[in-house]
Structure formats: C-alpha cells, structure tokens
C-alpha cells in the first residue's frame, strides 16, 4: 500500500509538470487557435534566464520573478515578430513555424549555456512528510499545489474576466472580433506572453528535479500534448486531470506491468489517446465543435 501511494503521489507531481506545459499550450490555443510546439523549449529558455540571474547573485525568488517577466516579453515578441505573419495563413504552415521556433530557442539555450546538465536550486524545501504510510517530498506536494492554483486562476481568467473573454473572442474569429473594437494584435501578444509565463513557472519548478539542459522538457512536451488531446483543447481543468492521470498511470504501469517497464512507459499516453479519441474525439472534457451554416 505504501509503495502504491508513493507511486501515485510521485505520479501526481510529474503529472503537474506536464499539466503546466499543457495549460500553456491550451492558453495559446485559446488565444490564437494554434498549437505551440515550442512551448517546452521556451520554458527551458526561461529556466536558463533564471539560472543566469542566479549566477549574478540574485536570490532565487527574485531570479524566478525576473525570468517570468522576461518570458512574458519573449512570448509576446515571438508572437509579434515570428508567428504573426503565419497566423492568418495555412494552419499547417503555422505548425511548422512553431516547430521551427522550438529548434531556434533550443539552439539559443545550447549556444549560450551548452549541453551540460546544470544544477538548479529548488524553490521548495527538500524535506519529506509522511502521508498514509508513504514518504512524500514537500517539493512534489508544493509543485502540485502551485500548478493546481494556476489552473484555477486560468479557468477564472478565461471564464470570468473581460480579458479572458477577449482572448477567446480573438481565437474564435479575429476578423470579426476586431469589428467590436478588440485590439487583435495586442491580445494575441498577451496570450503568448501569458503562456510563456506559465511555461517559465513549469521550467523553474521542474529544473531542480531534471537538471537544466536544452532538451529538458522535450519528453514532457510529448506528455503535455497527450494531456491536451485527452483533456480537450478548450478545458484547462480537463488538461490538468489528464496530465495527472498520465503521470500516475505511467508510474504505476512501469512498476506493476513488467512487460512495459520504464523503457516503454512513454507509450502509455499514446495508448490512452488512441482509446479516448475513438470513444470521445473532443477529449474527456472538451466541447464538441458544432458548425452550422
């Protein structure tokens, strides 16, 4: 029982990292209609920015704050100067552009900081507490709680604020939204900026565990995309639930299904996706898109 709970709690903690990235992807999608494949790479760059300020002797919370603000700006600028010209065009082109952006930011990280694993300090204490016989690290718990809080804030932002309504309106139909006076370009920049901010938080939360490398979040991005598909692109809560489920499931399967083990556990989310997409194509929590003319 102890091992089981341990596995579940660890799974929730890694799941919360996938969740943070998934939330950033959902945010960009809600605000721009695109899937940003560079979300993970951008988050890593954010963590490197925090790392650079740490190196200058800036205290950790402040370094993270600087990275978060810088990430908002980088996200907004990436939208304005790279993605903007492709947004209105072919969606397939835009996908290729965000993949190109992934290569670009990963390259920048590697160029500036190299490929060596760099240690990154944790924001939360490394002590443990005992829950139902399982030893749970405070860091895991705090990470999970942080992500859940962010999810709640995001959900409120989208559904209860004027900015959220405007972001969704622009994602739905930018041309038509402009007829109501919405500054479409600025809102797209805000959407990307907020997503990059979220990514930055994910980056600095996970860096202590994974150690900082340019490809640190590559695998996490795959899981995050799986969570987005499972949870539904329109649902922050759905993504967090799906990401947690993936985190827990991959842990359990790796231990309890010897055939799969740690080497094949990355297959878990894909099998899930396959099953869910057949049963419920809009995702577990997503809304079916109905178009009538």
């Amino acid at each position, binding site marked *: 029982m102890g091992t089981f709970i341990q596995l579940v709690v660890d799974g929730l903690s890694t799941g919360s990292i996938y969740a943070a990235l998934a939330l950033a992807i959902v945010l960009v999608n809600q605000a721009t209609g695109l899937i940003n494949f560079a979300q993970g790479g951008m988050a890593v760059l954010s963590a490197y920015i925090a790392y650079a300020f740490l190196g200058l002797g800036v205290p950790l919370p402040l370094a993270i704050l600087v990275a978060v603000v810088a990430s908002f700006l980088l996200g907004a600028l990436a939208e304005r100067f790279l993605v903007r010209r492709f947004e209105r065009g072919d969606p397939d082109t835009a996908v290729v552009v965000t993949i190109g952006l992934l290569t670009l930011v990963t390259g920048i990280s590697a160029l500036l900081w190299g490929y060596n694993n760099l240690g990154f300090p944790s924001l939360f204490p490394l002590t443990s507490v005992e829950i139902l016989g399982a030893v749970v690290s405070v860091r895991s718990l705090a990470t999970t709680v942080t992500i859940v809080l962010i999810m709640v804030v995001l959900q409120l932002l989208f559904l209860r604020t004027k900015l959220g309504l405007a972001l*969704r309106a622009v994602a739905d139909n930018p041309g038509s939204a402009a007829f109501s006076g919405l500054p479409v370009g600025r809102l797209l920049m805000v959407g990307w900026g907020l997503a990059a901010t979220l990514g930055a938080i994910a980056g600095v939360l996970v860096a202590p565990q994974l150690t900082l490398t340019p490809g640190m979040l590559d695998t996490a991005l795959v899981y995050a995309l799986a969570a987005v598909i499972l949870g539904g692109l329109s649902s922050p809560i759905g993504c967090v639930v799906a990401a947690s489920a993936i985190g827990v499931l991959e842990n359990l399967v790796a231990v309890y299904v010897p055939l799969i083990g740690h080497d094949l556990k990355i297959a878990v989310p894909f099998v899930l996706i396959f099953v869910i997409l057949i049963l419920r194509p809009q995702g577990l929590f997503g809304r079916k898109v109905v178009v009538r003319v």
Partner: protein
Amino acid sequence: MTLLELVDVTASYGPVQVIDGVSLSVPEGGSVGILGANGAGKTTTLRAISGTVRTGGRITFEGRDIRGLRPDQVAALGIAHVPEGRGTLGQLSVRENLMVGAYLRKGRKAIADDVDYCLELFPQLRDRVGSRAAALSGGEQQMLAVGRAFMAKPKLLLLDEASLGLAPSTAKTVYDAIRRLRRESGIAMLVVEQNANLAFSLVDTATVLETGRNVLTGTSAELKGMDEIRRAYLGG
C-alpha cells in the same frame, strides 16, 4: 449634418481593383442603402469603411479622415460592422457574444440593460443566452450579429445582407427588429440588401452600384420600381 462621407473611394484585393470611384454620404441618424447585382462591390464598399480592404479616395466620419485605420480603430470611433455571413463567435455563448460587442464600453449597469434590450428585441435569443452561437439557426445567428453590433452603442451600423440565406418570414422578423432598433436608438445605418422590399423598408435614400461605380442615387420613393433597380437585382 453628414456623419459618413465617401468621395471617389477605390478598393483592391491584391492587384485587382474591384471598386473604382464610389461616392455616398450618410447623414446623422439617416439610413442609406447600397443596391446592386452580385459582385457589384457592395460588400467591398463596407469593407473599405471598416478598414478591412486596401482603399484609396477619401472616407470621412464626423469630419475626420478614417481611411487607413485598423478595423478596431474604426470600431472605436462608433462604426459597427455586421459582416456578410454574420461573423458570430461560434464557440462563445450568446451572452458572451453580446458582451464582446460591449468590449469598449464601461458601466456594468448600462451594459446589462442593453443585453436585456437585445433579448427583448430578439426574443428568440432569450432562451438561448447560454448556448454557443454555433448551435443557433441562421436567423438566430443574424439576430445575434445585429445585437452584438448594437451592444457597442455605435453611431453608424454597417449592415451587409442581413437576409442572406434566411427564410422570408425570418428575414422579415430580422428587418422588423432592425427598423425598431433604428426608431428607438436613432443609430444611422448603411444597408446592403439584395431583397428590394426589405431594403426599401429600412432606407430613406439609396445608391446603385454597377461594377464598382455609382450609377444612380435617389430617395427610396424615386428609386422604387425604376428599371435600373430591377436590372440591379436581376443581375444585369
């Protein structure tokens, strides 16, 4: 007082100029029609005003040159465009669509009152306030598009073929509501409409376009039944 004035306006999509010299004016509180066959340039003329097509010539609104402004800037001046095809925000609820219309406004109470007014104007929308716009019928979507434009409290409404694709009785319901809106709010209107009866029920004067130029302008009374009008509607 003239609210909107177009002088020798041209517009092009890429290298192709599709209107070449349209002039018209809308007085404050007035209602002006743009008539003409398919492809005459009616929609493009409205797009030239709302800043969604590349434009030459002179366009003034309240005496101010607005040519070259972005669509959101034009909207902020008090021009609400109900585009051809309605442009409702499909994944947003009816209420949210109306709230998007009020994006530039302040004052919760006044906005809430205007939402109520919209639902009174279009009672069909009342039961659907929580539904996504994409799930509405074509007529309901058109009503929502007009309601959303009204929510901006504009000085001028650009209305593009509000009857397109609707059953005659639905089209009539929509136009009845728009006439009531005009009477009660005094919003000026520039109306593109293929159905002559509907058009003349709403406008005081109208101009007829043929291949991107005005060929005729007059009051509704003068224009009704003229050969050019019939020609315009039968497409030449």
